[in-house]
């Protein structure tokens, strides 16, 4: 039994079938990459899984729990976490405050309204541990908005890690990164794989082939094929729709 399964997911936007009966499985400890040309419906799929968009049909199961009918914030409680394609951190706050805020969501009630939050040592320690985990310990007190793009991306990942997820959805973590930042991110993602399953959406093929245990190719909202890197590289239809026809030569 897979840790995570999506079965027969469907999403329509008017006449457009953005997600067309998608089946997807991610095993524990596996990095499953989802690739596909622009407009293939990758981001829609991530939004369906994380619950930011309601699915028109289908089922989502994580670790035996049916998440389909649950609100996105409840899904987070059951072990689903995500990052965003457009870096989504709290730019006016320090890295520390960003991480404390993320940690707070999964450690007691956020309706507590009298005690001073920053006096809670457990939250501060959790924030520091998260910063350490993604290599941000040196910039804890810096304003998140002033950090370089690649550093903000790592903070974005750290925010998602705060909930100790079973499945981490990464929506183009390497987008807009130079080669050096990319390699750091690749190393970070690889180091996470032992602790959680990862569904990775990515355009950077080098990164995908380095990281993925399994690759699924999404075209026009449908899964075209699924398999390891060699299988996908060798698949003739993938070559024509995604890698470009010249790859066949």
């Amino acid at each position, binding site marked *: 039994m897979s840790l995570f399964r999506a079965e027969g997911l469907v999403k329509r936007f008017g006449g457009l079938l953005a997600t067309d009966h998608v089946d997807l499985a991610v095993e524990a400890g596996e990095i499953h990459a989802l690739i596909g040309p622009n407009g293939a419906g990758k981001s829609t799929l991530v939004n369906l899984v994380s619950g930011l968009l309601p699915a028109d049909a289908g089922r989502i199961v994580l670790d035996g729990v049916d998440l389909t009918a649950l609100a996105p914030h409840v899904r987070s409680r059951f072990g689903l976490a995500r990052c965003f394609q457009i870096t*989504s951190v*709290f730019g006016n706050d320090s890295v520390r405050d960003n991480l404390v805020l993320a940690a707070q*969501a999964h450690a007691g009630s956020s309706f*507590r309204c009298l005690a001073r*939050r920053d006096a809670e040592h457990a939250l501060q320690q959790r924030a520091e541990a998260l910063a350490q985990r993604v290599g941000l310990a040196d910039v804890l007190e810096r304003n998140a908005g002033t950090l370089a793009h690649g550093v903000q991306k790592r903070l974005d990942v750290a925010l998602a890690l705060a909930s100790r997820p079973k499945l981490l959805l990464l929506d183009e973590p390497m987008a807009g990164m130079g080669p050096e930042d990319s390699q750091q991110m690749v190393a970070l993602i690889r180091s996470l794989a032992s602790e959680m399953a990862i569904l990775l959406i990515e355009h950077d093929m080098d990164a995908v082939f380095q990281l993925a245990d399994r690759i699924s190719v999404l075209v026009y909202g449908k899964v075209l094929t699924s398999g390891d890197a060699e299988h996908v590289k060798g698949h003739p239809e993938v070559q024509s729709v995604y890698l470009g026809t010249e790859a066949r030569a």
Partner: protein
Amino acid sequence: MAFDRPAHFPGLSRRLPWLVLALLAAFPLIAPAFGLEYYVGFVRRLLIVAIAATSLNFILGYGGMAALGHAGFIGVGAYTVVALVEAGSASAWLAWGGAAVVAALAAAAIGAVSLRTRGVYFIMITLAFAQMLYYLAVSLRTYGGDDGYGLYTPLEMGAWLDGAHPQVFYWVVLAIAAGVFALFSRVAHSRYGHALRGIRDNETRMVALGYPVYRLKLAGFVAAGAVAGLAGGLLASHNAFVSPGMMHWTQSALLLVMVMLGGLGRRWGAPLGVALWLTLEEVLKMYTDYWHWPLGVLLLLVVFHAPQGLAALLERRGGKEATR
């Protein structure tokens, strides 16, 4: 902020609130010596409006909820007092407490619907609800309808308080205002306050992080509604008169302007904005019937030179870290 940076004048910025409180508390006693008795009532009104503005600043400045119907809750509070008086009750505490409770219920109902929308839709729907309350008050013949309702005998605060001093209502209002202000300042630094600001800054991310965003916002909306209702109850006592006009949408807009003038999402934003606006209004009215337009000019000046509001300007001058 995990580690507050020391202000340039740590002693002053810490003591200033207490100094202001002491001055306000002493004001009714020293006013007669300067022939300022009239202004005791003015300051009392200012304090009541500041209570309402502080609650609006909480949901708008900290929670990012641009509610354009806050006067509706003030009105609900005021009419609750009227209803209790009409029913034969004379207790001030029951009336003001009731005002807060009924306004909280109204805010829960209105918020439960409104908070499912965002942005301009939220502004319009809160406005619509407040206007519904306005027309409801107009149509309530028992409570005077369009003409309003006079509260001819003051509410009773208990024999001990009522007999203590003619200005005892002023101190009661001051104590409530200080309490409300201290409470909201404290909440701002709590888990809840941080979560609310997170929602203001990035709601989608907060959802993904696992926050029950809708319930968190609703809780803030209800709390703010309750406090606005309390202010409405006090205002009813202050004016000894209640009319539908106090919940007209222009009143909500005025409250919004005062909060923005003072500094949205700043600790001192609401009281500063209210104090400046009402004081200028009072002063300008002495010299001209056309007091609206200098206030308009002031508003433009603030928009261009201190878009973050007066509180932000003062914080910068004081070299103090913004308490956002």
